[in-house]
């Protein structure tokens, strides 16, 4: 087997291991009353062992792909997002060995699984490096930044558990609404994966020509039925669906189509779940958090920001500036990706100050941690896909 396919196999193994470990952590959570029962020990040990085995396979994927590509596998959206998912698991393992909380695994691993699944929807082939990326700073900057973001993400997981446990879901409230909104968004990501996979399994493809904003003609291939058409689009593939709505040249209607399909299918899944379970998703998950200690979750949320913030600053700002100075002649250029890294930095700085000086602990702190994760994901997804800039490599 050559390196590239070995690498894909290892990633798949890691993916499956994380799924299994999620259920094992579920078992550990259910059986842990005080943290010392034998049953907890058994489930917990098994769960963390499977997680670590998965993580080793994941590292194996990373190394073999590195060898196959000849450069650190962090050079396009698939590679970066996968590495991010891997590091979320790494960060979880680190925090688990400090705090020994199975509930964290129960929620952190599905997030990592979702991130890796999301990553795999992008072109996964190994790409050669464009001149701007040919630098050892690619390895240093991107890996450190992803590590920082992954540790910060654990804070959001802890915050999410804290909120699930402490929000009264029996009464109508803003908190109840928003925690359910978080659940809904997570289901939308599932919707994205499901819709991409189904259309790709059905081998859907339709080509259109269109007029771009600089008034030249281009071709574009849709992999999902075109809900939205590009500016003045004309079908090339015979029998291709006429787009329902045509968009102005500024909007990338193909991406919009993907987004809308994800929302549609995600919403259907969400509604089905609600119909089957007859409960809010948050209410379904809440019992799993009952046995976790709020104070501990609050501390984990804070601690992971404390650990992650310096790493993030070093990777996403300082190393980034050094490299930007070598590659683009200036250490700072207000490129959208740079700006959003700065926004993330400022946001977590606010988190730390509010916590230290204003005593924002518990729910407030947990909500901010969740918003922080949204900003990180925005920088990962939207800035590359929507806002044009120097970092649009995908």
């Amino acid at each position, binding site marked *: 087997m050559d390196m590239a396919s070995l690498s894909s196999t290892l990633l798949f193994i890691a993916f499956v291991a994380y799924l299994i470990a999620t259920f094992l952590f579920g078992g550990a959570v259910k059986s842990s009353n005080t943290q010392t029962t034998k049953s907890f020990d058994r489930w917990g040990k098994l769960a963390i062992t499977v997680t670590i085995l998965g993580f080793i396979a994941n590292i194996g994927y990373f190394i073999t792909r590195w060898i196959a590509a000849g450069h650190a596998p962090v050079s396009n959206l698939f590679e970066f997002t996968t590495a991010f998912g891997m590091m979320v698991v790494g960060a979880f393992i680190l925090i688990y060995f400090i705090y020994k909380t199975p509930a964290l695994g129960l929620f952190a691993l599905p997030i990592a699984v979702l991130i890796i699944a999301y990553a795999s929807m992008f072109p996964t082939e190994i790409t050669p490096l464009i001149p701007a990326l040919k630098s050892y700073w690619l390895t240093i900057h991107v890996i450190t930044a992803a590590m920082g973001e992954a540790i910060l993400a654990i804070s959001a997981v802890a915050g999410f558990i804290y909120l699930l446990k402490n929000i009264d879901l029996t009464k109508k409230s803003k908190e109840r609404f928003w925690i359910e909104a978080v659940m809904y968004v997570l289901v939308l990501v599932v919707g994205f994966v499901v819709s991409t996979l189904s259309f790709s399994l059905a081998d859907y493809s339709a080509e259109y020509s269109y007029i771009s904003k600089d008034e030249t003609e281009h071709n574009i291939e849709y992999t999902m039925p075109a809900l939205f058409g590009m500016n003045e689009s004309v079908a090339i593939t015979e029998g291709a669906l006429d787009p329902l709505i045509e968009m102005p040249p500024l909007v990338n209607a193909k991406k919009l189509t993907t987004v809308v399909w994800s929302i549609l299918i995600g919403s259907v899944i969400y509604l089905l779940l609600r119909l089957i379970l007859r409960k809010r998703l948050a209410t379904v998950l809440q019992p799993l958090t009952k046995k976790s200690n709020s104070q501990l979750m609050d501390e984990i949320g804070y601690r992971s920001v404390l650990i992650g913030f310096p790493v993030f600053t070093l990777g996403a700002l300082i190393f980034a500036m050094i490299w930007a100075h070598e590659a683009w*002649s*200036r250490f700072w250029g*207000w490129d959208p990706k740079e700006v959003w890294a700065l926004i993330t930095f400022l946001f977590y700085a606010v988190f730390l100050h509010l916590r230290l000086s204003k005593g924002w602990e518990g729910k407030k702190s947990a909500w901010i941690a969740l918003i922080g994760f949204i900003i990180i994901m925005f920088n990962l997804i939207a800035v590359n896909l929507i806002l044009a800039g120097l970092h649009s490599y995908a």
Partner: protein
Amino acid sequence: MDKIVCTCGNVNPAGTELCESCGRPLNDETKEKKIVDMRYEGSARRSQTYNKTIIDKVWNFFSSVKVGMWIIVAILVAAAIGTILPQVFYVPATNETDIAAYYERIYGTFGTLYYQLGLSDLYSSWWFQGLVGMLGISLVIASLDRVIPLYKSLKKQKTKRHISFLKRQRVYGIGKADVSEESLLKAEEKLKELKYNVKREGNAILAERGRFSRWGPYVNHLGLIIFLFGVMLRALPGFYVDETMWLREGETLYVPETHGYFLESKEFIYETYSKEESKEVYGEAIDRVGTIAKNYQTDVALYKGPEGAVAGHTEDLTFEKEASIQVNKPIKFDNFSVFQMDFRLDELATMTFQLQDKQTQQSFGEFTIDLADPQPIYELNDGYKVEVMDYYADFTGFEEGVPQSQSPLPNNPAFLIKMYSPEFPKGETSFVMIKETVEPLGENQHKIAFQSVETRDVSGLTVRKDLTLPLLALGGLIFMIGVAQGAYWNHRRIWIQLLEDGQTVIAAHTNKNWLSVKRDLDKVTDVAHLPKYLDQQDIDSLEEKVDKVEGV
């Protein structure tokens, strides 16, 4: 304002909440609290004490964390708004009219609004820079307001603290456990083993470790201040150079702002990945994407001119070095770096023509025009010659009979030419364009026939000098040290006291990471048989304990 004298005899500055020495609460508000606020050790901060003069008010405004946070949030929101559309410096237009037109053409009404509100150049707007300036002031004042009293307070703290201080700590326990001198010694020993700095005063123990982490926030703020100061320095002349130059193959040009350096472009190289030469694993990507750039490179020679050398005078140059400028690999000399940023392939360099008889196409000689330096006269054999009366590098057509050139770049060269021959000593006029000739003054007998062109590549280079970099690096380094210091270490204190009534008190405080200090305390109480403690803030555990007591 008056100083506050504590019962223990210590004289505290006005505004102190907890006696610097023994820790007694000094005002009613503090006395009412179940857990005391330990953030600044209850020390007297200027901002909390004085509020009379304008200076007091300005000081108090900027020392407030709340104000600081609002400034950060404002910067954060503004920064985000600036990413909605590309900023002016990423827009392919140079003058105001073109820029405005660009925003309107590409982004419609919203673009126009964005441009007119100044959001398209948001980061250099006075109000954005004002916000950053305010953040700088806030960093200085908020730090000074806290670090000085905190330092004094931690320096003055006594080993023996008053019970009213200890019982208001988050981790606190009291009991009639059988504690003797021996167990105090054991505790002392264990604490030392746990790398605590232990002090003993009578029946009181103060164990402390990691105090230096309390300075972390102030160290990182200092780093940020240095960084911001470095950024401001760029505005001073001489610190910062940002120039661009277009260098053609074979050309030697003065490097702007460098005081006497010249660069010669030997060759520009543009390479893409080909399936044959690249690694096999890249094949799929190359198939999907098509062309993937591999290398942009300008091979240059660097020269230094004599004292006072200026642009355009390339004589008496001394060779310094040769280098290949690639993306990520600038050439560096004398505080300057020159970066490979852009390129144009195959710009016309020379054009070769023949002077011919229109009918017979007999040639009377050939001449080559260097488009960067067209000569006025080209002498041919046997009394034939050609005069270039005018040159239009980027010809766009005639306006009221006058030829127009839209730029000095040889994108579409055209010449107004006079052809001299023995038959026409006064010359025949011809307007020569690519693929076409116009005879403005009537039918000619001769013509200029196009033979061949030579092209060359042009490198777009950025010339940079930034003397503020060492300062920025220093600021960044200090910031990282401060952040690590504050985040990866913590200040833990454990107090153990044998009271006069025979009870034993233990209390602990940490600025973060309560789990660790509790673990330390567990280890100490195990060996020394000290009373149990409670985390007075851990409601879940408190409830669980209540449950157990009630037998649930």
